[in-house]
């Protein structure tokens, strides 16, 4: 028995050492000392807590980097040091709640959160309010509570503006559109807004009718099969609305395989409207297969949110606490001279 005790004990040590070694190593490699904040006393230094709902998108990488970029600029300008504490909820609502609680207990000066769930984020907001920490929702709005500030794209109007531009385009070319709509993940409020914005323009302008809606859940093979099946079941389709042009590559291949891939102006061109100007979308526009997309301006989102965060952290108040960055309509014509497209900076664009 004693022998076992010893064995258990030694084993225990080994395990704990392994465990701590991992975390320590982690801490060192990823600059724990920068990110971990001291209690905020002097305002010469502020700590921003950032809670991502998930991090499996390049866009989020882009946001994060731009934020750091703007923060640096701000540091030089205002002479404060800005620390970041960042965590990710892996697409799990409850975990995001936990993560934000973690941020609160770390005593950050302000919290930025991209909500996995617009309604659930309110609980976290209340928790932050209790702790007296200003709370900013980023990209995805809170539903059922008004947080200290919201910064994001206006996903509804973004869709509308893209829709308008698209309608103009169709009318200019005298085309009556019959469209397939590839929906996003229906649990994502943004995706729903986009669909609604699209529907709004359809109703008002009547430049096209949507003959089929395919929910992709952002699942790649549905982007492909959805497109193909759509055309199979409605051969006379001549336009598409794609919830995000991150999926353009898939759609492009799908079209190619059913021989429907043609550039603007070419015979049998399928008119494509989309959103985001993500890396594939950027490529699509540059090559002239896609017609319209509204840029999802990570650069400006980041700029705005950092500004807002700084102001709130400094205890000042914003004059306007809902900051919506209007997407810029990008078409295959103007794409080359549109500036600050994150897709250009992050994509490995191949001519």
């Amino acid at each position, binding site marked *: 028995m004693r022998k076992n005790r010893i064995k258990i004990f030694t084993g225990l040590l080994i395990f704990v050492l392994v465990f701590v070694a991992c975390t320590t190593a982690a801490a060192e490699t990823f600059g724990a000392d920068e990110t971990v904040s001291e209690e905020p006393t002097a305002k010469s230094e502020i700590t921003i807590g950032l809670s991502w709902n998930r991090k499996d998108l390049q866009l989020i990488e882009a946001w994060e980097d731009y934020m750091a970029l703007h923060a640096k600029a701000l540091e030089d300008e205002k002479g404060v040091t800005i620390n970041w504490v960042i965590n990710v909820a892996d697409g799990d609502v409850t975990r995001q709640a936990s993560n934000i609680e973690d941020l609160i207990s770390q005593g950050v000066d302000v919290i930025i959160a991209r909500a996995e769930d617009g309604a*659930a984020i309110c609980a976290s907001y209340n928790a932050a309010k209790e702790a007296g920490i200003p709370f900013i929702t980023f990209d995805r709005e809170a539903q059922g509570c008004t947080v200290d500030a919201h910064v994001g794209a206006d996903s509804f109007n973004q869709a509308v503006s893209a829709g308008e531009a698209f309608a103009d385009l169709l009318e200019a070319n005298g085309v009556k559109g019959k469209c397939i709509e590839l929906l996003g993940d229906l649990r994502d409020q943004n995706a729903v807004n986009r669909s609604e914005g699209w529907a709004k323009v359809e109703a008002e302008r009547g430049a096209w009718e949507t003959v089929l809606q395919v929910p992709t859940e952002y699942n790649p093979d549905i982007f492909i099969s959805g497109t193909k099946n759509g055309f199979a079941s409605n051969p006379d389709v001549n336009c598409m609305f794609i919830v995000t042009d991150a999926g353009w590559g898939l759609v492009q291949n799908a079209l190619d395989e059913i021989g429907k891939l043609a550039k603007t102006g070419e015979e049998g061109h399928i008119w494509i409207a989309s959103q985001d100007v993500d890396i594939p979308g950027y490529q699509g526009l540059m090559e002239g297969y896609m017609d319209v997309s509204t840029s999802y301006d990570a650069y400006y989102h980041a700029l705005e949110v950092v500004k807002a965060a700084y102001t709130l952290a400094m205890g000042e108040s914003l004059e306007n606490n809902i900051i919506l960055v209007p997407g810029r309509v990008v078409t295959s014509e103007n794409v080359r001279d549109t500036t600050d497209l994150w897709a250009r900076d992050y994509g490995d664009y191949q001519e």
Partner: protein
Amino acid sequence: MTKLSDRKDLHIGSKFIIKEELVKHGIAALPIIIVLLASLIIGLRVPNFLTARNVINILEQSSAIGLMAIGLSFVFIVGGMDISIAANMGLSGIVGAVLMRIGLPPALACVVMILAGTLIGMINGFAVAYLGMIPFVVTLSMMYVAAGASVYLTEATSISGLPEIFVNTIMMRIWKIPLPVIVVVIFSITATKFMRSSYLGRWVYAVGTNIKAAEIAGIPVRGVKFWAYALAGSFAGLTAILNTARLASASATMGTSVIVLDVASSAVVGGVSMYGGVGTPLGAVIGALLITLISNSMNMIGVSYYLTLVVKGFVIIAFIGFDYWIRRGNE
């Protein structure tokens, strides 16, 4: 079957001796020691980690997984599996939330949530115990059905605007300790007591250890299985109450499939054998604590999310492997 039972022997044998010891001390000592040591060491490295707030935080965060782990431990001990427990939690929460929205008094809604969870658990139990379906298969498909139903019911939007009183009561703090934490503590202790020293609990262990012998010994094997699953379901329902209150809303994203694996590994880390007959609910809860601790400490240290995944994955494996190593040492 032989395959399982043989590996079971290999698992339980000495483990059971340990259990007998632990029964005296009343807890799965190993994980708890590790939890303490690890948190101590991290605490030394990271400010704000051992603050009262964060400790309570960790407890509160682990409460949801903990409750489900209790439920799952019944199923594990009876020698089964429940993949659907998280999806079940999500669906029950949604049902409850919907009813509250249309004006059902919160108290009743809570009861409904538990009932809903239990009902789904019963369906699982029925399929396993009386139709003789394979637990993993039954619950896996139940997971799909429940998740699907959640999306359908909510049209994928989240149901918010639940009555203040509901949220406030559930999230109430007693001497700074959140109600959920207290609930988990109470349930883990009573459940463990129930499993260890009630005759029903004995039956569960017996069925999980050797179902044939249990049948010969006149134990109502099917009933035991059935109720184990039903019980797991009701704990899913209970968790639903906590989560809907904590998020002040319910949505289809609440019961993502990843959670199941968290819960399962909590139970296993807490010394509940997947092969049946071994472990206690309390152990499962402590396991949940350990799992939560991993994510929390990673957050506090500020490790990149990507690395967190890697560390978490390997820590879980390392723990189980190490646990086995010790048990083998006992043989």
